[in-house]
């Protein structure tokens, strides 16, 4: 440590922290609680299941319930489909994405990400290595690769998410335009328009959206891929179908 670091370290020791609450007692209560709750929950779930099965027997109800698309871990609930608005080019410069990227947790390098996750990280052909790499442990390692726009270095050109199957799901996506398509014969969805993304596991986590553009989502059965881009659907599919493992 140099002198400045020593000073920081020594000054920080004077910080007046609030007294630490008895966290262990509360956690122990919660750890011991589920056994009791789970029996009650089991009964409730059984009743709900019986109710759902009965409802499924009624054709119009069944149709309403099935009105969502499931791609890997992503469940998409379309809104009432709005007519597509033609995008009018604007001269207003796009806001810088750099501060947002700096707030995303889990930044790492491609080599470290490769070591950390147990699935192959794929890269688009004819692209350099990503400008940003993130690996986030959200009950399963999600990898996010980000390429900045070489012409507008403050804006994101492309982002690619690798989301392994886990005990959680992304839900509540409400794009304005939704189109079913395929990537290497796997079912895929093309979504256009701004929409919120909520990653749901034990509690809800906001999922950072990097491009106000289009998203191609597909799965190969074990990984769900999410490609955010300003490109057209055809170009996005071309990129998706030609992803290559890191050499």
């Amino acid at each position, binding site marked *: 440590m140099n002198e400045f670091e020593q000073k920081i370290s020594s000054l920080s020791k*004077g910080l007046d922290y609030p007294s630490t609450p008895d966290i262990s007692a509360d*956690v122990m209560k919660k750890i011991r609680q589920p056994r009791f709750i789970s029996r009650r929950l089991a009964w409730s779930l059984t009743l709900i299941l019986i109710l759902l099965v009965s409802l499924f027997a009624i054709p119009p109800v069944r149709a309403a319930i099935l009105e969502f698309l499931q791609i890997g871990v992503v469940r998409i609930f379309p809104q009432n489909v709005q007519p597509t608005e033609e995008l009018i080019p604007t001269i207003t410069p796009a806001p810088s994405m750099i501060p947002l990227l700096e707030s995303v947790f889990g930044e790492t390098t491609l080599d470290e990400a490769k070591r950390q996750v147990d699935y192959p990280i794929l890269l688009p052909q004819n692209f350099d290595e990503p400008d940003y790499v993130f690996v986030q442990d959200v009950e399963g390692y999600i990898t996010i690769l980000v390429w900045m726009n070489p012409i507008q270095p403050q804006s994101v050109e492309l982002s690619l998410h690798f989301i392994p199957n886990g005990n959680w799901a992304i839900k509540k996506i409400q794009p304005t335009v939704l189109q079913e398509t395929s990537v290497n014969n796997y079912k895929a969805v093309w979504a256009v328009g701004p929409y919120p993304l909520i990653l749901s596991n034990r509690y809800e986590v906001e999922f950072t959206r990097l491009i106000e553009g289009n998203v191609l989502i597909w799965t190969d059965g074990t990984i769900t891929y999410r490609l955010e881009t300003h490109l057209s659907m055809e170009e996005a599919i071309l990129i998706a179908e030609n992803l290559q493992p890191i050499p």
Partner: protein
Amino acid sequence: MKITSAEAYLDEITLIQRAIHGDEAAWEPLMQAHQQAVFRLCYLLLGDPDDAEDVAQETFLRAWNHLKRFDSTRPFRPWLLSIASNLASNRRRSAGRYFSALKRAFQNEIPPKNLEEKNSQNNDANELWKAVQTLNFQDQQIIYVRYFLDLSVNETADVLQIAEGTVKSRLNRAIEKLRNVIQKDFPFLSEGHEA
């Protein structure tokens, strides 16, 4: 008989092994041993004791649920702090946090008793904290773990799940930014102590 740190470490390994096999009683002393560090990191990252307590609790619940994924050849505290840091990062971005901040803003209108006196005693440390809070989240994270909580470079690498070399380069960058902030907005912190 005096308990050495090696004995305490062995005890910790035994407790972890028992907890991995579902022994709840072994989990309690482990939490007690680390709850202060976890709570303090959450407090530093979130700036609110209630938020910090929530996230610290969630950290231990999550750690308990995922204990089988812990590599028991590695130190335990950095693993817990890593979970805490990720959860705090999520909490900072969540909508609930803005409501807490709003609530806090109202609460802060009435200064607690003796706060002024306490503040003067710890003024420099609090000003340093304010200076660190102007940095981005990643820089704050590394400074808190390395200097405020006094973890080694190796342990910091474990917390942030990055290589030691990356810790060193990120620390250099973060410290440089902090130095500039201090020189510009908190000059009294560096008076007579400039490195």
